């Protein structure tokens, strides 16, 4: 893929292979994610797109038998370097999952503050301000500002997902990974999240895994198509959808399989 010449490269996977034991589920993938862009990762179920995403913030290695070869560069630095603490890394790369995962014992406020508190070193006022900012960016502030001390479970599914986005945004990450964030949401909730992607890319680099091609078309600047663990094709979204270079890509986006 050729990002525009002036774009800063934020995140890059270099010959990345992800394995469970001896079974490779992502095979030798190299891809660039320009700063302040949205890249959609599409492909049929089981093509390794979620696993690929989880390699970017070193979550894959927490799965039973999960390990990788190759590497990932964040701002040019190898995140798999021996000197990198994966816990610290994950504070720079936020992640939101398929299903909303608010912490059930915490209030709305505490959920958003969770990532800040684990870092420590912030005063009450700073945490208050950061929580409000994160909730505003996740377009949830107006709906919850009067009930910050209520349980996060009182929110609707769509609100919970935006809460999880706010929680991921609060520690000010550079990159936001979204793993099928609208899979469990209704159309209204989905639309809100998609609108958010447009808003958020001004500040963050976003990688979004989706099985919904229309969604990829709506939200992303670049699209990567995965099939059976291989990166088949990646390019500008409008190009990939209108004149794909690979036959497999065309077959998939025209609905001949998947």
């Amino acid at each position, binding site marked *: 893929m050729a990002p525009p010449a002036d774009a800063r490269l934020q995140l890059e996977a270099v010959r990345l292979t992800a394995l469970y034991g001896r079974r490779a589920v992502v095979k030798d993938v190299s891809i660039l994610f320009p700063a302040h862009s949205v890249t959609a990762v599409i492909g049929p179920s089981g093509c390794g797109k979620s696993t690929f995403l989880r390699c970017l913030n070193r979550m894959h290695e927490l799965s039973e038998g999960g390990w990788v070869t190759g590497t990932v560069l964040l701002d040019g630095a190898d995140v798999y370097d021996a000197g990198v603490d994966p816990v610290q890394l994950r*504070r720079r790369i936020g992640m939101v*999952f398929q299903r909303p995962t608010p912490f059930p014992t915490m209030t709305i406020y505490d959920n958003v503050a969770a990532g800040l508190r684990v870092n420590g070193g912030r005063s009450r006022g700073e945490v208050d301000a950061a929580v409000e900012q994160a909730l505003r960016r996740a377009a949830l502030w107006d709906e919850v500002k009067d009930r910050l001390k209520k*349980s996060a479970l009182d929110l609707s599914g769509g609100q919970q997902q935006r809460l999880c986005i706010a929680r991921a945004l609060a520690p000010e990450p550079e990159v936001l990974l979204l793993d099928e964030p609208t899979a469990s949401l209704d159309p209204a909730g989905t639309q809100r999240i998609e609108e958010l992607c447009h808003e958020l890319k001004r500040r963050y680099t976003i990688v979004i895994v989706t099985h919904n091609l229309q969604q990829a078309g709506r939200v992303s600047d670049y699209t990567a198509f995965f099939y059976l663990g291989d990166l088949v094709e990646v390019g500008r979204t409008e190009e990939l959808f209108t004149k794909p270079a690979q036959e497999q890509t065309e077959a998939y986006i025209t609905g001949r399989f998947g």
Partner: protein
Amino acid sequence: MSARRLRRRLVSGLMTTLVGVLSFVAVLALAVILGYLVVKGASSLDWNFFVKNPVPAGQAGGGVANAIVGTVIIVGVAALIGLPIGIGTGLYLAEYGSGRFGWIVRFVADVLNGTPSIVVGIFAWTWLVRPMGHFSALAGSVALAVLMVPMIARTTEEMVRLVPHSLREAALALGYPRWRTSLRIVARTALAGILTSCLVGIARIAGETAPLLFTALGNLNFSSSILQPMQTLSLQVFTYGTGPFDEWHRLAWAAALVLMGLVLLLSLTARWALRSRHGAAR
């Protein structure tokens, strides 16, 4: 066609009745025990029973204040020793116990869980009472704690395992270190369940008698020193129930009723705690 249908209905009705009767028998046992305790013991329950110490054999009156206080102390100390170890073990098993060591710990806990309590009592006698040279409440507490640990460990493990894996991942992805994820997110979420298992565990050991016979021994006088022999309600029931005096038998029934009530109260509290927390979560 209709004959077969009739047969099905008949068998179905029969089996439903059968399991219904069986459940009734099961519940009946508890009802009879409780009812009988109330009939035999309730009349002896008065203020004096709770606040007076036993009087010399043959005299009327007196109470079991020493046994009530003793039960609270012995069970309390046992909980103080057993709960942290049990909860910690359970948390370890659920969060880190997938390897070989975890397997061994689990196996040992299961074996220990099935060990007759009197065997644990004998061990406490051998390792504590004999070296110390005298019976003591502390030895009793240790014996009860040993009984409690595997029980608490396994139930805590179950409760922690109920916490969805997605919550763990969410915390880790947020930059939580693993140990902090275990404590702040996973254990917190399972807290109601863990507390319940603690209460059930306490209720279970509160009624133990056999391991206390070799350790706390019992005491007809009031004692609050954990290094001295101490009375408990269960020991009181044993001593008075097997004694020769009618007055003692009367007090044994009443003590049994109080003990039963205590255990019932703990169990009900446990149920209530679990329900109210879970109810709020849904």
